[in-house]
């Protein structure tokens, strides 16, 4: 990390030395008796998110957890009830949309719901889409690329009225939003330890008390205790930083946004509830991937979600050229003022260098 300015914290996060060392010790020392402690860790994490009780299941990544939920829902609910519709916002992560698409080869019918200009799925759209055959709504509370927070309370009300189960991914939101999940009765809650400074991706699923999650294998072997303790430490540590994100990271985000606006950048999703660490910006005539290429060559890492951000912006009504020009920058509690100053300088330098590439496309 030493010389990199890392502004891509919703794709991966730098491993925490403390968690890595703890994992090493637990792998060495807790290999016999760790089994007994796993349930306790599940309860600790459930309480951390305000849930009364929940079963904790771990997978090798957040994406694997998502597919496990979809597959389990298909096996245990859709095949039993014939309620084949799975609902998700059209902007949702590929691990969800592609997972649904995979199950469409069977009898599942995926319903991608349009979002509004702020990137949110509204109560009205959900109500208009719900049918008797709708059985699951799956979505991220906060989108990792845009930071947009979905109006989960409204959406949950609709789901409860129609007996629709809910899977909520909170990977981007943990440690950045207060998570008053008690009483919301979310059926499946997921997050990825790889985004919370664990040294590797760990998919965590909390299943509501009484709920079912079909296992991915029946060997009786599960993740070691060290993985459970690592995800617990990561979630606890992240939740302890909420105030830092709300105050300090948000201050840096605002400062950075001002600098970007001053150099001609167009900022998105500023008028909607969003995470305190996420910026979406575009510059005239500069393709986002082109800008990212040059930024990376100069030591700054950010993302456009491999083109996914452009699709999201177009789905929110943004002009295609502006949408393809957009990049997502995500800060963390490790980001410094100096890094923001340096990042702004780099972007300014590159916008001047790259804008001539398409500034005169219509000259004759």
């Amino acid at each position, binding site marked *: 990390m030493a010389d990199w300015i890392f502004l891509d914290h919703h794709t991966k996060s730098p491993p925490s030395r403390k968690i890595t060392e703890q994992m090493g010790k637990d792998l060495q020392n807790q290999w016999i008796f760790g089994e007994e402690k796993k349930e306790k860790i599940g309860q600790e994490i459930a309480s951390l998110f305000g849930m009364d009780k929940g079963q904790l299941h771990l997978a090798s990544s957040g994406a694997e957890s998502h597919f496990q939920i979809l597959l389990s829902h298909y096996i245990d609910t859709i095949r039993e009830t014939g309620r084949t519709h799975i609902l998700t916002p059209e902007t949702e992560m590929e691990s969800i949309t592609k997972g649904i698409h995979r199950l469409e080869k069977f009898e599942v019918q995926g319903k991608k719901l349009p979002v509004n200009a702020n990137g949110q799925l509204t109560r009205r759209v959900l109500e208009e889409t719900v049918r008797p055959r709708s059985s699951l709504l799956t979505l991220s509370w906060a989108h990792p690329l845009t930071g947009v927070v979905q109006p989960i309370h409204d959406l949950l009300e609709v789901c409860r009225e129609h007996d629709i189960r809910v899977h909520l991914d909170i990977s981007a939101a943990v440690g950045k939003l207060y998570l008053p999940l008690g009483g919301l009765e979310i059926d499946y809650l997921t997050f990825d330890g790889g985004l919370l400074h664990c040294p590797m991706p760990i998919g965590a699923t909390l299943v509501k008390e009484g709920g079912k999650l079909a296992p991915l294998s029946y060997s009786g072997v599960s993740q070691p205790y060290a993985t459970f303790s690592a995800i617990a430490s990561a979630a606890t540590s992240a939740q302890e930083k909420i105030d830092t994100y709300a105050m300090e990271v948000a201050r840096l985000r605002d400062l950075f946004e001002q600098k970007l606006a001053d150099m001609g950048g167009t900022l998105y999703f500023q008028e909607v509830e969003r995470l305190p660490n996420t910026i979406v910006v575009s510059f005239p*005539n*500069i*393709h986002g*991937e*082109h800008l*990212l*290429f*040059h930024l990376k*060559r100069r030591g700054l890492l950010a993302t456009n979600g491999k*083109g996914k951000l*452009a699709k999201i912006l*177009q789905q929110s009504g943004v002009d*295609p*050229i502006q*949408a*393809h*020009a957009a990049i997502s920058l995500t800060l963390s509690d490790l980001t410094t003022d100096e890094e923001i100053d340096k990042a702004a300088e780099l972007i300014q330098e590159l916008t001047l260098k790259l804008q*001539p*590439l*398409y*500034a*005169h*496309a*219509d*000259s*004759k």
Partner: protein
Amino acid sequence: MQTANKGLTTQIENPRSVGYFTAGEAEKKGMRLAVGKGGAKEHGHLVTLFFLVDEEDGVIADAKFQVFGPPLLVAVCEVVCGLVVRKNYLQTRRLSADLIEKEVGGLPAEGAVFFNVLLEAMDEATEGCMDIPIEDVYVAPPDMEGGDRQVYPGWEELSDAQKKEVISQVVAADIAPYVELDAGGVEVVKVEENRVTIAYSGNCTSCFSATGATLDSIGNILRHKVYPDLMVTPDMSLLSQA
């Protein structure tokens, strides 16, 4: 994005043909301005090509581009602008995706779509030049003088049929794309030990250079890339007697 090679990275980092020409500039230089666009904004790929075309012989004297797209598209634009200069508009229209790819020097799979964007822009730019009379010129395959000569492993032990197969692959990859620029074609008829007989088709059958510079270039390439003692002769029965 992973770039395939260092050359591509250099072209992306410092493209030399970025820019544009105005009608006024073209007029001042006594040239025709030809402009063509390719791509679609929904896909985030847009290219505008600007050619300065000599109205005496249809040769493109200079080329510049404007681009909105991923870095690989910038590299392809840069390569195309380098390729078309000193070619006439008909030769430019015959540039194939294969030849552009060869000049780019390898592109990741996701870059293949960019060739079509450029071909679309080249077509539109050259469309407006079709009234310019074309001089009888040709494009020779690249000169292979200098550089390291290669010897195909175990060449002397190969049967004639195997030798023909090896040479045919080199002709297809390194010679045919250039000959096709002049609406010509070339293929290997037979190989007897180190004697290679080739057959021309299309415009090559009536081109004076088929037995001159083009033949020399083909021989050079094969001697450099396959075996130094190869002797190449054309099948004269297929050449026009005019």
